């Protein structure tokens, strides 16, 4: 018996929507640190992955899990690139504060 049929889909979707909300909140409400933004982006990607796995299990369809393998790889590449860009930025500006990233305006 598949566990998802005893628990139901709703708890999974609720948790993943909660993760998405925390991630969005972390990007928009956080005025401090760029690294926190990076963590929030990871959280958003993971919420989508949780969704995909839950649906894949409920639909008895493997496509969603294949998609998760791809998107995990991409998430790893994305955070590597993000860290690299933040390091390059830090060397020029000597800060990773979000309010300092404002020399271009208008």
């Amino acid at each position, binding site marked *: 018996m598949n566990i998802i049929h005893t628990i139901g889909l709703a708890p999974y979707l609720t948790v993943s929507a909660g993760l998405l909300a925390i991630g969005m909140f972390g990007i928009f409400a956080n005025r401090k640190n*760029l690294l926190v933004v990076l963590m929030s982006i990871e959280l958003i990607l993971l919420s989508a992955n949780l969704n995909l796995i839950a649906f894949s299990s409920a639909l008895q369809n493997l496509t969603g899990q294949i998609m998760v393998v791809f998107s995990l790889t991409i998430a790893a590449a994305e955070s590597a690139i993000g860290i690299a860009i933040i390091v390059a930025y830090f060397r020029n500006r000597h800060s990773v504060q979000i309010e300092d990233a404002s020399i271009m305006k*208008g």
Partner: protein
Amino acid sequence: MNWTIAIPEIVLSISGLFILLFGVVQKKENAFFSCTILSVAAFITVGFLALTMPPGGGYLGLFISDNFSRFMKFLIILGGLLSVVLSLDYNEGNNTNQFEFPVLIIFSTVGAMIMTSACNLMTLYMGLELSSLALYILCSFDRDNVFSTESGVKYFVLGSLASGLLLYGMSLLYGFSGGLGFDDIQRVLTTNSQHSAGFVIGLVFVLIGLCFKISAVPFHMWTPDVYQGAPTSVTTFLSTVPKFATFAVLLRIMTTSSGFTHQWQILIEVIAILSIVIGSIGAIAQINIKRMMAYSSIAHMGYALIGLATGTAAGVSAALIYLASYLFMNVGTFAVIIAMRRKGRFVESIHDLAGLGKTDSALAVAMAIFMFSMAGVPPLAGFFGKFLVFGAAISAHLMWLAVIGIVASIIGAFFYLRIVKIMYFDQSVESFDQHSLSLSFVSFGMGIVTVGFCLFMRPIMVYGFMAATSLIKM
């Protein structure tokens, strides 16, 4: 399994890897020039390959090749090729002449090409990320420059937020339609009249992610900053290739989900109107020419979206022709912007163009042609694009869309013509440095195409219409 339909992508990726290897093992101090020439050769080869691809599907229905993808791939390869040619001069002058630059442009172009052929959300996501990840690096390529790295940070944060939302939307679409293919989405749309909330939220999230990439209005905040900070050769690329690819995806999803046309239409109409109005008004206040071009590109994407909002074959082919004309005049303008250089330093204020009509008349004529074309003055390329788009909107009974578009294009004429006024009627400060042959070549070539667009119109229109009908029929 018909793997041969992806030959252009395969060849371009392998050439990218080969050029990377070539650059690494090069004994000479700097491999930038030779790698750039090799990538120009790769782009030209792949351009011919892409034109000869037969229509068909493959890779278990993940990948499709048709007249539409061929048309878009041709534009994308042309955009990548011209950006690489422009980087030849800009990156030498900017001291960012590392050989990784053309390689990253190649990989980003491969991602864009995959997006145009995607008929499955998985292919779409992979292509989009391949194209975006290379672009994040390209934006902060001038890594000792605080503007460039800041633009990289901004593009990375907002871009990955958008692709995260896109992925979340895809997961909902998967759950509520049972598959990742565009045809699964279409099946749900055509069979059910009442759509579940999760499905609609998923569609809206996907739309948000895609609108971010073409910088349509509610999601355009990043555009001016990133365009200003990124190296100008990257800005050229950024304003053409990823936008074309995303536009191709939007067209394919919209025309596939024909059962949903009405709801889509309202969303796209609102986004198009907002983009045109805010792009045209925002550009007026800009002194920096790259920021001005950013707002101008927001407005241009709005005009192309009008063609998409009609949902007819005529509208889609008008949007394709609009994108083609936008490519030529946009790349030409950026070639002139790269030529704006005094004593080896790049200048970006529009007032630096003062008196260009006297000091460098050939460059001034080219810039005037591009500005008149963007404003939509008749015999030039931009006019035909706007004319076809507005014509399609009127015949699809979207009269108010055409009216607002025409009013906004008159507002837009102000800041384009201001450039012409500054070039010809203001006192010159000091002349620009002598510019290189590659810049003259690109600006001259694009100028010829922009002026003579009415002569090339017929083949472009025929191919555009073939592309549109291959899509609408699906």
